[in-house]
């Protein structure tokens, strides 16, 4: 029997989860608008949020990775990131307020214009997927490791110094995981909300993964069906619906419906489809700067989101661009593509050195 006090705390925590998800979505919008303004780009509405998502995690990596490698206490990263977010928000909310209003109004208008059965079905399948993911009690060794990593970070005020799985102190930083700051971001949310990692990961981060996945499907639909919103929504619906039948433990669907809160879930359902989206944009036009910048941001933030992307993202980008080059015979495709995969090349070099025995000892 749940007491009234416990029920009150439960409701408060659920409300906090919802607030955190809304806050993150707002940040993606703000960062998207910011990057658009700084680089003088002209994205479509949904592309602003999508790019903002990747830019947000890309910037977080720039802030967090040096602190992880220098083994600074976790509370310093929390303070630094909160300070940065506050500053970035104040500047962007003032400097880009018109663009933000325009974006918010445009999104509302888009929803209104797309009203109908297709929108309803799309919203229903997204809602059901969020519920379905939150309700599953999948517990594997990876779950234990990743959730344990976030919990341990908050509990010990250190980053990757203790083994996330068993809780013992390590002798060196495990760069197989420590090169990606994804879980440290979750730890900051846990610390700020004073909540257990499993609640934040399952209900907030998992939901964000599903929402961004849906946004990418919608964006791809928009490109494939000539901006027809209803067809794009239909594509979104089928793209999500088909997941429910693609049931083996290895599939992208498994990582969407059971493990969306894991970094691997983001690699399978956000990073890879986003690179496909950028490729579809480039198929339409290789001249538009926006398309190249999008590809760059997607690949740049692939490792910050998931170490699984370290090899997959550049290989996929290389294959997509090589195919395009074979059709167009335009060397600029390969040259620009090269710059898109440079960040992952650097990560790969560091990781390769790590596998060869070059380790950072824990002090």
């Amino acid at each position, binding site marked *: 029997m749940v007491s009234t006090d416990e029920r009150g705390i439960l409701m408060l925590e659920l409300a906090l989860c919802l607030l955190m998800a809304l806050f993150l979505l707002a940040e993606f919008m703000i960062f998207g608008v910011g990057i658009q303004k700084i680089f003088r780009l002209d994205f479509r509405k949904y592309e602003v949020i999508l790019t903002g998502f990747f830019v947000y995690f890309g910037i977080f990596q720039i802030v967090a990775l040096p602190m992880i490698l220098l083994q600074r206490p976790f509370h310093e990263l929390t303070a630094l990131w909160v300070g940065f977010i506050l500053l970035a928000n104040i500047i962007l909310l003032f400097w880009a307020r018109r663009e933000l209003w325009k974006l918010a109004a445009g999104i509302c208008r888009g929803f209104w214009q797309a009203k109908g059965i297709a929108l309803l079905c799309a919203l229903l399948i997204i809602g059901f997927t969020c519920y379905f993911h939150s309700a599953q009690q999948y517990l594997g060794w990876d779950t234990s490791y990743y959730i344990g990593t976030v919990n341990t970070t908050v509990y010990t005020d250190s980053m990757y110094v203790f083994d996330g799985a068993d*809780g013992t102190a390590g002798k060196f930083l495990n760069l197989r995981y420590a090169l990606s700051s994804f879980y440290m971001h979750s730890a900051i949310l846990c610390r700020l909300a004073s909540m257990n990692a499993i609640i934040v990961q399952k209900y907030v981060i998992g939901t964000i993964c599903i929402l961004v996945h849906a946004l990418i499907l919608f964006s791809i639909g928009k490109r494939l069906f000539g901006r027809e919103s209803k067809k794009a929504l239909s594509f979104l619906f089928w793209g999500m619906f088909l997941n429910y039948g*693609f049931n083996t433990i*290895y599939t992208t669907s498994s990582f969407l*419906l059971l493990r969306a809160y894991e970094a691997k879930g983001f690699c399978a359902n956000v990073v890879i489809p986003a690179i496909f989206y950028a490729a579809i944009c480039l198929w339409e036009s290789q001249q538009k700067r926006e398309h190249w910048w999008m590809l760059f941001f997607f690949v740049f933030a692939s490792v910050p989101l998931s170490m699984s992307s370290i090899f997959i993202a550049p*290989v996929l980008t290389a294959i997509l661009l090589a195919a395009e080059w074979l059709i167009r015979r335009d060397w600029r495709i390969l040259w620009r593509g090269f710059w898109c995969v440079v960040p992952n090349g650097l990560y790969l070099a560091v990781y390769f050195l790590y596998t060869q025995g070059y380790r950072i000892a824990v002090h």
Partner: protein
Amino acid sequence: MSQTGDIIQTIQDYMGETIYLPMFLCCLLICYCTGKKDSRKRILWLSVLGILAIFNNVSIRVIGKFTDTITYYRFLWAVPVLLAIAYVITKAITGLRKIWEKAVVLGVVLLLSWGFGSSFVTEESLRFPENKYNLPAEAIAVCDIIAQDKDEERPVVAFDMGTQLASRAYDPSIVWGIRRKAYIEHNDMEGYEEAGKYKADKVLIHAVNYGVQGEGELLKKALSKRKVDYIVTFTGYGMDAYFEGLGYSLVDRCGEKSVYGKGKGL
């Protein structure tokens, strides 16, 4: 996932009993046949480059040397199986005028995607979390027992596998007495020839996960080596006297589990 380094086997493992691969190939063929000239070229080149660069036995071995073969399946995520199928379905459904035609397409899709018993949606999966952590209530109760009883800030606990998986997701102050790799690779009733550096862990696994009682001396050494403060095992194994003899007394019981503490008592 297959570790044979065979691409066909890997794809079979990835797809399981679903028929998404044939569906994907059909959709790719449809896209190729109905697409414009450039789209056809793209499908062709992407397929050729994909096979040459990644989806072949040599690449599996090369990638396996860099990371490991067991994670190679992640490259299959880059095959846009669902995107291609969703594209063809959307085109088919939005292109049809009559409702009965749409219904037929819908029926075929449902049959193909869900009709082979591979759906995620089952009676068990349509549920609500039993608590806010969505962890087994018994595991939470076990961790609470340890938290209330512990003298050490970070007690070392040898858990049965199920409780171990949930324990640190709930309480990060707990340290596992049995290492992750030991449970993954040596969770069996076999001897210790293959256990290597995980021998102590395996002795603990034998006791807490299988209820083995004939390894008193080995277990005593393992408990000491791994500095175990608490033991969690199934009550049904009847280990009270056995653990008492090793200096671990019953602290409390919860559901099917019993918690024993070093030098403790009820």
